[in-house]
Every structure is written in C-alpha cells, then in structure tokens.
C-alpha cells in the first residue's frame, strides 16, 4: 500500500526531488565550472516540475471556456514557470559568459587549478 500511495501516486514529486538533489550535488561535487552550471540548471528545472504538477488536474483542459469542458487546469503555475524559465535562461547565459571570461583570464575553468594559481 505504501508503494502505491506514497511513491507511485506522487511520482512527479519524487522526480522533482531527485532532479533537485542531483542538480545540487553536481554543483557541489564538480570542479568544472561549466558542469557546475549544468547542475545549477538541473536544480532550477526541478522547480518547474514542482509548480506544474501542482497546477495540473487530471482530465483538465486548458482554461478556455467551451461547451462541454468543465474541468480546467490552473493556468497560473504555468505562467509563473514561463517567467522562471526566462530567469533560468538569463542566469545560465550570464554564468556561461562569466566562464568564458574566466577562461580568458585564467586559462582554465577547473576550480582547483584556479585556486592553486591564485594562492601563489
């Protein structure tokens, strides 16, 4: 019973949590600055799923008034996540631009190499 009610019925939440933790782990565990940004993106993306699952109603249609359609999905989370996607893209773009500049300035994008160089 536990398997059904807590895991399968909420599978989208489990996927969300998995992506969230995986993303954070990559950010912490990787020294390569591009890989860190990939992890960060994954982490941000997991939040999209968190919002969208909450807005989805089984059998619901887009909220357009039409005869015969009575159950509508909540449009607000979708709109919020459109905004969050834009923010995520901007963050990723800025992060990658910074990595390009760091590569020009230090000649590497491995964090430990940069810190070793910096300590001298």
């Amino acid at each position, binding site marked *: 019973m536990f398997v059904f009610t807590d895991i399968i019925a909420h599978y989208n939440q489990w996927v969300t949590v998995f992506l*969230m933790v995986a993303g*954070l782990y990559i*950010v912490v565990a990787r020294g390569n*600055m591009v890989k*860190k*940004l990939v992890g*960060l993106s994954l*982490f*941000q993306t997991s*939040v999209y799923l*968190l*919002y969208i699952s*909450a807005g989805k109603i089984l059998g619901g249609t887009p909220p357009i008034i039409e005869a015969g359609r009575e159950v509508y999905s909540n449009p*607000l*989370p979708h709109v*919020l996540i459109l*905004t*969050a996607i834009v*923010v995520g893209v*901007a*963050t990723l773009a*800025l*992060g990658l631009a*910074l*990595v390009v*500049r*760091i590569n020009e*300035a*230090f000649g590497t994008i491995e964090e430990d190499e*940069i810190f070793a160089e*910096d300590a001298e």
Partner: protein
Amino acid sequence: MIASQLPALQVVIPLLGAAVAALTRRSAIAWGIALAVSWTMPLISGALLLQVLTSGPITYSLGGWNPPWGIEYRIDLLNGFVLVLVSLIGAVIIPYARASVEQEIPQGRGAWFYTMYLLCLCGLLGIAITADAFNAFVFLEVSSLSTYVLIALGRDRRALLAAYQYLILGTIGATFYVIGVGLLYTMTGTLNLADIAGRLSEVENARPVLAALAFLTVGISLKLALFPLHVWLPNAYAYAPSAATAFLAATATKVAVYLLIRFFFTVFGVIFVFKTLPVSPIFLALSLAAMFGASIVAVFQNDVKRMLAYSSVAQIGYITLGIALANQDGLTGGIVHLFNHAITKGALFLVMGAVLFRTGSVKLEDLAGLAKRMPISMGAFVVAGLSIIGTPGTAGFISKWYLALGALERGDWWLVFLLVGSSVISIIYIGRVVEATWFRPAGKLASGAREPPRSMLIPALILVAATVYFGFDTTLTVGVAEKAAAALLEGIR
C-alpha cells in the same frame, strides 16, 4: 493623478532608465540618465513614506487587477522605510560613481555599469515594494543578475571568480526561495503575502508549510549573507568596482533582511515562527557566531575592502540578532541597525573607493601615513569607524542601545556583554586602519596621494554626516522603526 501612480513609478522609472542607458552606449550620457533617475527615486519614496505616516498603508493594484488576483504593491511603515533607505543610498552614490567608474571600468563599458546599477536599483526597490511572493522572486533575480555583472566589472581578474561564485550561491538561494513560495502556493492557492498569511491558519497539513518556511529561510539567508551562508560576500565586495561595493553593501543585504522580516512576521506570523518553532535560538546562535567569527576574521585582513566586507557579515549579525530577539526593543534595534549600518558601511566603502582612486591600493601596508595626504577622507573614515564600533554620538550606538534593551527585556543580560565584546573586536580592526593611516610614516604610495575630487568626497561626507546626525536625532530612524516593529509584533499580544 500622478500621485496615485507613485508606487508603480518607483519601479518603472529605474527600469526604463536602465533600458535607455543601455541604448546610449555612451558613459557620460548613461551617467546623466542614472543621475536623473536615482535623484528622482528619493522624492517618490519620501512622498510614499510621508503618505504612510499620515494616512496609513498604501495599496496599489498593478494594471488595475485587484489583489489577490493581480499583483499588489503595498507600502507600510517597514518597507516605506526600506524604500527611502535604498533610494537615498542610490542617489548619494551616483555622483561619486562618475570619477570612480571612469578610472576603474575599462573604456567603453561605463554605460553598462550605469545600466546594471539602475537595474539593480529597480530590483531592490521592487523587492521592497511588492506584496506578491512570486513578483518578489522576479525582482530578486533582476537585482541579483545585475549584481553579478556589477561585480564582474571589477578590474581585478578575481572579480570574475567572485561574480561566478556569487552567481552559483545566489541562484541556489533564489531557487530555494521559489521552492518555498511554490510550497506555500500549493497549500494556499495564492501568492499575495497578506492573503497567504490569512489562509495559512486554515491549512490542516502543517508539514509542507514547515518545509516552505525552511526553504524560504535558507534561501533568503543566503541572500542576506547570514553566517555561515556568507562565503560569497567577502570576495564579491573586495573585487567589485568601488561604487558598486558601496551600493551593494549598503542596500542589497538590507533588502534581503527586509524580505526575511516580512516572511517571518507578516506571512508566517510571530507565534508560529518564534513560539511554535525554535527559530529564535537558531538565529541567536548564528547571529552571535557572525558577530564574533566574522569580526575576528576581519581583524586579520590586510585588504581593507575585504576587512570591511567581513565587518558587514558581523554587522548583519546584529540585525538578525534583533530579529531573533523578536520583542519590541530588539526588533526596533534590528530595523534601526538596517538603516544605520547601511549609511555607515556605505560611507566607509566610499572612503576606501576614494583611497583606491588616489593610490591604486587598499592594502593596509600601502595606506601607511595616508592621513597626512588625505586628512578629510581619513577623518571621515574615523568618524564612520566610530559608528561601526558603536560609540555614543554616532548612529551605530543607537541601534546597539536598542538591541541591548531588547536583550534585557528578555532577561538575557549576558547578551549585553556579548554585544559589548563584539564591539571591542571591531575597535581592533577599525583601529588597525586608523593606526596605519594616522600614526605611521608615509609610505611610497601614500606620499603621492591627495584628496579625491569633490564629486567623490562630498557623497562620502554626506553619509558620514548622516551617521553623526542619526546618532543625535533619532526621530526618523527610531520613530519609524518603533512603529514598524509594533505593527509587526501585533500578533504576539
């Protein structure tokens, strides 16, 4: 007619200003736009605060959509006060930025500095003014993304690293914030802060609400650099361009503190956060760790900008201590310190920017004997330094006084000793700078220096004068903070 649109204009003007400044591509014109915009902002925020003081909170429905469906801008005493603080600091620093940016920012990028400055101002004012949880996230990211760029514009290549680190941690913080907001939204179905507060009491399952509080607290604490989530701050402040450092140190963390106060007191409620949950002892411990840990680290810094950055972490500890005390005097002290620390630290970073402008270094050994060449600037440093220490007659004393009263009100007299103890450590690090600049023979760099141009000196002196003025006349700071604290604590009585 226009008066009723002031809340929207507070955010729209800097946003449009940033767009226009970006299009000009010319540093001088962009500076002119930034000057016009940032000098308009205090007029608007001042008018708003005055209106709040005379006739109570203002609410504004963006686009004519009524809350809770539309986005609401709501100004009460607390955020009216924060708006005035941010816009005043923004206005004081812009004249200073002209000479400083010309020297520190590579040729042809000056216009981008002013664009980012205005965007950051827009974001910070937006966080303070909005009553919508998700809108606050958008403004948080507007201000954060522009902050990363401002830091990366620093001339040292380590500025890029500092910006990257802050981008990673800042984004994690902001994402935690959205997760928290998302959980609140799924439980209450609304994003309007007052509406969430009203519906939270009807929520039956408390676990998602607890998770939301945890995510929001950690996310916002990253932004406000609460110890031990402050690791991004020292490098960011040390390597950012001087004008950006002064602006960020004085405003960015303060706005995050405001957001935290808003969520703790207005949304979740004092009873839930401080009576049901052990938030108070946790924040007390972290605040004390910041006040001592960061102060001690500051003592051992040789880069004065870095020293002041660690001092900022310590001073933020005082503000969060006020939140942790969660009583009338303590919270008043916290809110007052938000203001007092902003003007004090702004003044100190402006002086250090002027030193960097004339000598090209802020290393302690390079500053030896500087006071003989730059007596006004270094005199200003001493006065603002006294305010960091909390000497009577300066703004810093007022906030620490109220924090001590708040501690005594709870019966925690030992906290008063710790407050004094932390101040003693700040005497050491401020003292090191004063000793080097005033009492040592002039070094090579210092002997060639002279006072900075008036456009840089006057803004610094204005902030220093403000630290002294608000040490004597507290009607604006304490007067407003007391009423704001009373309104926030209403639920507890």
